[in-house]
């Protein structure tokens, strides 16, 4: 589904990613781990289409050149990014934002729009599962939310937007154990044979809940090591240095 070949990314003359290769098939959950500054967030931003990066290499999504698409076109193809730092939009109601986003995607995909009533019912159902108060819908997008609330809101959006490829950028950072469990369960519920996930983290804790199919170590701008779930446990025990050395 996602095919990344020799991805090289430069920001203001500084090379962040340096020939990264990665292949993710439908139904798989992959984890990318790595120390701070390894380029993990750069990878997720570049995949989602944020500007400000010089990008070389090839990225295809279902065979289509992903790098040629605008961020909203990538979203319409089914790419979703759960942000490490969800952005606040004062004055814009969460419900209004989500409903607009869902219908924007549906329009781009040639599907009929969802009415406000039907959408509200669906949103409430998902929120109940995530332990979110329905009052969230009338609050402004992420405005005044705690760190945990913002992350849950990202998972809620992910559930409502029904992506084909979900990228979770450090979704576990800043969460306490309980919030982590709720978020992990939320993610787990979204696993489907036709949906892939790329989980970016530098703590193995989330992975204990998610049990990814593949774990990759990102260091010095490329994948230096790949393995099964057991690799995460090894990193937990020994840190990144041995991985880099091998």
């Amino acid at each position: 589904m996602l095919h990344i070949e020799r991805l090289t990314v430069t920001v203001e003359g500084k090379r962040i990613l340096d020939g990264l290769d990665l292949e993710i098939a439908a139904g798989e959950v992959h984890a990318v781990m790595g120390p701070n500054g390894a380029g993990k967030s750069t990878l997720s931003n570049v995949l989602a289409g944020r500007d400000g990066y010089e990008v070389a290499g090839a990225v295809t999504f279902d065979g289509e050149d992903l790098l040629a698409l605008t961020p909203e076109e990538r979203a319409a193809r089914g790419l979703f990014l759960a942000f490490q730092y969800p952005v606040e939009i004062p004055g814009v109601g969460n419900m209004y934002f989500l409903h607009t986003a869902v219908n924007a995607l549906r329009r781009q995909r040639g599907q009929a729009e969802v009415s406000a009533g039907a959408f509200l019912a669906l949103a409430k159902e998902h929120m109940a599962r995530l332990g979110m108060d329905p009052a969230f819908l009338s609050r402004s997008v992420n405005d005044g939310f705690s760190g945990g609330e913002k992350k849950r809101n990202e998972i809620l959006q992910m559930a409502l937007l029904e992506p084909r490829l979900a990228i979770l950028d450090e979704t576990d950072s800043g969460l306490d154990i309980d919030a982590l469990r709720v978020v992990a369960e939320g993610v787990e519920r979204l696993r489907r044979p036709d949906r892939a996930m790329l989980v970016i983290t530098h703590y193995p804790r989330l992975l204990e809940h998610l049990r990814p199919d593949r774990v990759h170590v990102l260091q010095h701008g490329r994948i230096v090591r790949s393995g099964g779930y057991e690799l995460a446990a090894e990193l937990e025990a020994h840190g990144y240095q041995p991985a880099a050395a091998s």
Partner: protein
Amino acid sequence: MSEVIDGIVERDYAYGFHSDLDTELAPKGLTEDVVRLISAKKDEPEWLLAWRLAAFRHFLTLDEPTWPNVHHPPIDYQDMHYWAAPRAKGPAPASLDDVDPEIRAAFDKLGISLAEQERLAGVTGVAVDAVMDSVSVATTYKAKLAEAGVIFCSFSEAVRTHPELVRAHLGTVVPFRDNFFAALNSAVFSDGSFCFIPRGVTCPMELSTYFRINAAETGQFERTLIVAEEGASVSYLEGCTAPKRDEHQLHAAVVELVAMDDASIKYSTVQNWYPGDAEGRGGIYNFVTKRGRAGARAKISWTQVETGSAITWKYPSVILQGDDSVGEFYSVAVTTNHQQADTGTKMIHIGRNTTSTIVSKGISAGRAQNTYRGLVKVLRSATGARNHTRCDSLLIGPDCGAHTLPYIEVKNDTGEVEHEATTSRVSDDQLFYCRQRGLTEEDATSMIVNGFCREVFDELPMEYAVEAHALMRLSLEGAVG
């Protein structure tokens, strides 16, 4: 981001049509004869002519103010018409059916079908007065208002039918000596709206006036007077548009509000005069004086959404004369291209325990300059006065400017005056977040800007909040939607 900025810079004006009406014009220029001509055309009583002439003589002693933070070539006050009216085809319209079809077509194009408004009035409760150039062409729903004792008619009609009310209140809130443009307006004002709500009556529907400048090289000088007697309340909205023309046109209106003890007046404006083209050619000079006087426990609330005009210069104000009176000012001012706005409010605290709230949202794009200028004055008598002011500025693109000029004068040391100000940009983070969720850059910008304005839009009557959203979108979108 850059495409959106281009879109904003290239925005087009949707109301720029011109109606082909047979128009009666006074000769160009401003003289005592012109003042007399206007008065005669309107068959005015002697006292009103005398008042106009006094204003005119005072005007001659004044110079145009230079303190606003706006820049324009000198205005030649002799090079414009001070009276323009759609030439009457037969007697004055007795009902909507008699209004000139061209005029009705013009208002239809604006999305204000008079017949439609009359029909809707039963449902949404909106009565409309429409003013084309200098003359009020139709007031809808008069009968229903009359049942409640509410008078809502053109200013000229009020002079004929209720001269005692007009005479008692005209110039009592904005005297002709107030300022240069108020003096000019008082001398040559043509028409406008008059509204009177008797003691204890809550006006049964929204009142609304649409102003339209149609004729070329014409100034529009309307005058609005709203009187709410003790315990009365009313919500009033004005909307404004003008055709596209290459020359600048002057609009110098005066609005006076009288809220007696325990009365409440809510005055909302959606101002979308022609702003000029992308190079700054043409557009309305909007130099307006708006002020209300609040009696004991009375409340006056101004809400304005300003997207039009080449230059805006206006400060809707409240004189908080009675004890416990309340003044509010909620404003969104959008400037794009070469537009300039110097706008804000004055809250004059005279009575005890008077409170005022100011929320101003300025949005600048293109090469526009947006200035908030506000005065909060607490007089010695105003024990326990309180004010809270918040000014937020939003910048879109690198070439625009936002300025905040608060003046605070406190002469009573029990007063509490707070001022907060912020300046921000539509951030790349916000845009990227929205686009990642599937919104286009334009939709994202519009959503973020509308969110920024929400507090003010929430103050608009329901029917117009939707209109304000749409207008904001239009202002920021450009011709290529």
